[in-house]
């Protein structure tokens, strides 16, 4: 118990802060912060597995997140029949061609020794393949994009419940990570970081501009929900009764019947959006807890010890007969798959898929601040990092405004400096992130909750 005191204290403080937001701002804001904190926590756990367990830097986080979001669209949206009949065959043919191309490259790689000729053959196969695929897919893509472009103009998905996409998102992200890992894992740490960042930019460029698959920047809206809709809730009897029970003391103060009814309506509307958010919180919490149990088990298993051995001394681990390359690839895929789950969760919560909002340059570094601040190698630390950093990221504007008002209290309201500072309050979040990261790196390089390995 004593050993875990700092963990419990840190989480209690964090929860207290969120409750304070609920009391002083509104429970709606507090819950949406809490939900996004949970999603960030999942992403951080993914990054933490790669960085904390194995020392791999992966800056491709937004690429996997976007793929997870794509999975949510492909799973939950109903298929667009006209689009399939218009261009589906061309797309399927192109898909077969891509698979054929990959198999051909693989065959050449296996069959022939490494030589210049082999490189040229592979290059020829790829270039010829791309040209053929463009010719085959172009008419199909055009036909698909012409099918009611304002509403569809894409192939749609499978029309399954959106929850399934959480698993499929993990598979997509894991698949991409497998390819990237095969290509880039041999590189040195900071080189790997840059390469993964650039690859994630490529992935997002594709998702953004291939309208037949994702509707691109036209966005997909109105995705199915795993939670009830507010409008339906507001007409359900048991929910109205529940809200009435909760607010009985306030309602009893109002004597006039019509006024009482309108107050109740107000409470029901507020209550319904809180209830929906609570449903999401429950779902996300289940995911976080399952992942936490799995990652904790993995950390203390023989496999976890082997990963730490590889991280701390690659040569020695290699000499002991551990296959470093294979393990690196495995952990790269696992971590990325977890990030993919987070991506699908994010789209599920928002109910819409907006490829334009995936900005690798903006959010990748934020997730990394979460990992470093929380404590790399410690799962509880990673989750805490997700919570703390996301909370600060959202709440830094109000905090900044308060600080500006405090420091410029002596100036008139129209003083140019004060006006300018109040206008730039949103940018205080960057300052907070930066200074926070620098201070943690300097004075507590292992994070708020440092890695602690106990032999059990």
């Amino acid at each position, binding site marked *: 118990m004593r050993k875990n005191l700092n963990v419990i204290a840190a989480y209690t403080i964090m929860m207290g802060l969120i409750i304070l937001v609920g009391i002083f701002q509104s429970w709606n804001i507090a819950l949406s912060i809490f939900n996004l904190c949970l999603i960030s926590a999942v992403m951080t756990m993914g990054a933490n597995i790669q960085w904390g367990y194995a020392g791999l*830097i992966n800056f491709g986080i937004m690429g996997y997140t976007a793929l997870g979001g794509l999975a949510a669209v492909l799973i939950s949206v109903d298929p667009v029949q006209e689009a399939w009949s218009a261009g589906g065959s061309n797309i399927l043919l192109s898909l077969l061609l891509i698979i054929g191309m990959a198999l051909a490259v693989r065959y050449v790689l296996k069959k022939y020794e490494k030589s210049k000729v082999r*490189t040229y053959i592979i290059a020829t196969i790829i270039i010829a393949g791309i040209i053929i695929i463009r010719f085959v897919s172009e008419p199909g893509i055009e036909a698909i994009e012409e099918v009611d472009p304002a509403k569809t103009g894409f192939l749609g998905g499978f029309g399954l419940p959106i929850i399934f996409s959480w698993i499929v998102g993990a598979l997509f992200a894991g698949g991409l990570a497998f390819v990237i890992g095969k*290509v*880039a894992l*041999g*590189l*040195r*740490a*900071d*080189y790997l*970081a*840059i*390469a993964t*960042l*650039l*690859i994630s*930019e*490529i992935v997002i*460029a*594709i998702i*953004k*501009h291939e309208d037949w698959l994702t509707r691109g920047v036209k966005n997909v809206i109105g995705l199915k929900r795993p939670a009830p809709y507010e409008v339906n809730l507001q007409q359900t009897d048991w929910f109205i009764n529940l809200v009435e029970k909760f607010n009985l003391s306030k309602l009893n103060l109002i004597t006039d019947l019509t006024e009482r009814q309108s107050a109740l309506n107000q409470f029901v509307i507020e209550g319904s959006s809180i209830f929906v958010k609570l449903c999401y919180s429950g779902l996300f919490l289940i995911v976080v807890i399952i992942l936490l149990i799995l990652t904790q088990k993995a950390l203390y298993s023989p496999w976890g010890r082997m990963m730490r051995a590889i991280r701390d001394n690659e040569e020695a681990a290699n000499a002991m007969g551990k296959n470093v390359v294979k393990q690196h690839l495995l952990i790269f895929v696992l971590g990325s798959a977890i990030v993919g789950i987070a991506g699908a969760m994010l789209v599920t919560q928002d109910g819409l898929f907006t490829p334009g909002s995936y900005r690798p*340059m903006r959010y990748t*570094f934020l997730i*990394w*601040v979460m990992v*470093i601040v929380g404590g790399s190698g410690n799962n509880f630390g990673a989750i805490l990092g997700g919570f703390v950093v996301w909370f600060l990221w959202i709440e830094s504007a109000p905090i900044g405004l308060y600080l500006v008002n405090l420091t410029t209290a002596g100036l008139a309201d129209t003083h140019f400096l004060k006006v300018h*500072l109040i*206008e*730039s309050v949103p*940018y*205080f*979040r*960057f*300052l907070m*992130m*930066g*200074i926070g*990261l*620098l201070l943690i*790196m*300097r004075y507590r*390089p292992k994070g708020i909750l440092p890695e602690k390995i106990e032999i059990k």
Partner: protein
Amino acid sequence: MDYINAIVLLLNYIFVPALAYGSQLALGAIFVTLIYGILRFANFATGDMMSFGTMVTILFTWYFQSLGINLGILPTALIAIPFAIIFMVGYMLVIDKFVFKYYRVSKSPPVQLAMVSIGVMFVTQAVVRIIIGPSDRRFFDGEKFLIKAGEFKEMTGLNEGLAIKSTQVITIVVTLILVSTLFWFLNKTKTGKSMRAYSDNEDLALLSGIDPKKIVMITWIIAGVLATIGGALYGLDKSFKPFTYFNNMLPIFAAAIVGGIGNPFGAFLGGYVIAFSEILLTYAYKKFFIYLLPESLEPNTLVQLLSTDYKFAVSFSILVIVLLYRPSGIFKGKIL
């Protein structure tokens, strides 16, 4: 005549813009490569350091404009740049003293320094946005075009016009002067040679009596000069927006790595490789072929290899290919 038209077309839409853009990338790439070679970390704050330098340039430009000082047909920013450089070098040295020095002295792994540079990136971003705001700013004044498309057509009687913006010429000329001075400095002067020695083998350099503090300081000074000039030239040619500068970090890194990281000359050429491939692969060649081919063979599509949406993706794909087949870059940098 058609051949000349076709050539002018390519000059106008590909060669001149790519040369200017490449020069801007090249300065950034040399900046990255110098930090990497001598201070030994990947500087993720590159884009934001450039935007900081540009911001200071803009502030000085506004100040001079309010005083009524200008250079006639040349942009006022050219007088502002030297003052901005002084300011920027100060900023770099302060950051080094308070942030990077600690990790250098304690011999932290390069990854940790890269993470620290992310912290610097956030702080610089905040400072720039708080001082000048996130919006798009143009600070160019003076004569806009050296040759206007219309004038060129009249002069030569061709169908295609060739427009050369004065900012493009300024960019290329300044880059050439700056880069040749830098190479002269690195190859011929004693300090430059000791910097190269330090980059090549730190222990051996220390043994032969090279002062590491001096080397580091000079590196930051050169870096400050490169960042300010590179950023200001980009801002003059296009416009200044903090987020664009932040994003430019990616092609700059790509240029540095393609050229062979740690090798300034490679970085210089890498900038042009990236710029030219981005523009060559996304340009629609329809008009070009109309000029060259007989009427029966004229293309009816755009003849574009990739849509312009994939502009960024092109340079990154080149980077990935280079990484796969020649991890040390085209011009042999450090093997990573």
